């Protein structure tokens, strides 16, 4: 009687890539709801565009590379890329921005390097950076919170704004937008207005960061903690990123509180939270050893702060992540754990 002879182990944990990706998306839901509350329907529409583009590109690339389509298209990894990219793009950005960004991420940053598991760089960040450098104006037209709800922008209005650039009531995009909190701090510091003065004169300051953004940061934080609890990501990278960012911000803040924003502001503004829990933790492009992850996270935290304060861009998470992606293999090589039965430093 012919018996099946698969190899041991014969049992497996109840985990798969699809499960992991679904959990990441679930963890983003509270943040998405909050974002929509503050900034309108734009995010959801962009996500829709992103997901559709991502699936189409993935399908085409899998076919072109002669890989099994069903197995890979249902693993959910492109959905996470699209969702994260949607967070990084202004809510009323034209539709083609998302399409170009997601296609670049999926086709170039993911598939041309070998597909799932082979990309050395975080695909969402590659897409974002490409968009930022190629379309700087479209990428920096952020909205202030509540403005859309004040103007009674409906869902259909948002759709027409994104797809046709047609804004109702004669508004143009320029009239609607305002600086983001980080941008504001940067420009104000450049003209020698202290942080405290900026805080007092500008309404977009909330308790920690910009109004709206700090709440999104909260929810992302909670979503990230849930992911750690569910063992989708490990705590090392988020703690290292936020911890190092907090520490270096604290050092400079204590030295000169007028010219350096407080660590809490840094940690809750921009994409710091998103980066720490969702972007830097992308398993494929991050370091893999435990110590390596800590070093990787510290690198991202410090680089982000440096770029924010002294660099040319208001937010440095994307560049910091990409730079540390470059360093990840070397970090892994030098942080191998000591194997059982071997002495430390033994080959």
């Amino acid at each position, binding site marked *: 009687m012919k*018996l099946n*002879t*698969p190899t041991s182990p014969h049992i497996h944990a109840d985990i798969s890539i699809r499960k992991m990706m679904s959990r990441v998306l679930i963890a983003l839901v509270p943040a998405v709801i909050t974002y929509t509350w503050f900034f309108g329907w734009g995010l959801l529409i962009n996500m829709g565009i992103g997901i559709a583009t991502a699936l189409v590109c993935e399908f085409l690339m899998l076919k072109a590379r002669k890989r*099994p389509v069903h197995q890979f298209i249902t693993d959910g990894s492109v959905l996470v890329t699209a969702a994260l990219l949607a967070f990084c793009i202004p809510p009323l950005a034209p539709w083609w921005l998302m399409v170009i960004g997601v296609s670049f991420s999926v086709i170039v940053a993911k598939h041309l390097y070998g597909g799932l598991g082979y990309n050395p760089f975080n695909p969402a960040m590659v897409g974002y950076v490409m968009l930022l450098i190629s379309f700087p104006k479209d990428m920096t037209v952020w909205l202030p919170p509540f403005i859309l709800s004040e103007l009674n922008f409906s869902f259909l209005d948002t759709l027409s704004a994104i797809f046709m650039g047609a804004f109702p009531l004669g508004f143009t995009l320029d009239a609607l937008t305002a600086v983001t909190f980080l941008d504001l701090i940067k420009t104000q510091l450049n003209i020698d207005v202290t942080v405290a003065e900026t805080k007092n004169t500008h309404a977009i300051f909330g308790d920690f960061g910009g109004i709206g953004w700090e709440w999104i940061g909260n929810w992302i934080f909670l979503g990230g903690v849930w992911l750690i609890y569910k063992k989708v990501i490990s705590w090392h990278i988020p703690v290292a990123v936020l911890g190092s960012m907090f520490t270096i911000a604290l050092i400079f803040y204590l030295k000169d509180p007028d010219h350096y924003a407080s660590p809490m502001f840094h940690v809750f503004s921009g994409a710091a939270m998103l980066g720490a829990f969702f972007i830097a933790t992308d398993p494929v492009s991050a370091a893999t050893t435990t110590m390596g992850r800590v070093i990787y996270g510290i690198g991202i935290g410090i680089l982000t702060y440096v770029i924010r304060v002294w660099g040319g861009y208001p937010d440095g998470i994307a560049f910091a992540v990409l730079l540390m992606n470059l360093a990840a293999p070397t970090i892994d090589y030098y942080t191998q754990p000591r194997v059982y039965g071997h002495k430390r430093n033994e080959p």
Partner: protein
Amino acid sequence: MITAIVALAILAVIFGLALGYAAVRFKVEGDPLVEKIDAILPQTQCGQCTYPGCRPYAEAIAKGEADINQCPPGGETTIIALADLLGRDPKPLNPEHGEEKAKRVAVIDEQVCIGCTLCIQACPVDAILGAAKQMHTVIEDECTGCDLCLPPCPVDCIDMVEIKSTTDTWTWDFPGNLPENLASLANRVNPAASNDDKTSSPLEETSSKKTGTEA
């Protein structure tokens, strides 16, 4: 202008001296490359690589005259090991030189052998026992499976027989390169189980004959 030339010349001399000193002081003594390459080759001495033996092939590789993918008995593992040693990329076995086959040994059919000693002279490792007009036989343990004794035999009495694997020599199969291939592992039936076509080769007969008394 003159000062620039003089300064650069002096710098060149200094660096040249430093490099020369380093070349002598930090020289790494190691095996010559040919020895290292020869240690990787399987020593079948079959000549399929177009060189008369493994040593000449090793020398050719070291000189750069031969490529690393010319050895069928060594197969993929030898190519990868050579690539690792020489810092090159591994490449597939060159089909012009043959294909990777399972390890075989030569067996002389004693009924047909005429005792002409031509195979003895052909064997590169002296694995054939015999003398003129006496019975010839291959010493199984020493035979490398190089096939060089087959052409000279005038009565064609030599067969190449595959060595059957036992539980001692069996190795696990390679699980596969692409993720897609691994789907079949879920309900794989091991091909070794279907042993229906038993050929009656002399090698198999020896293993199943077991007497109760001790040797």
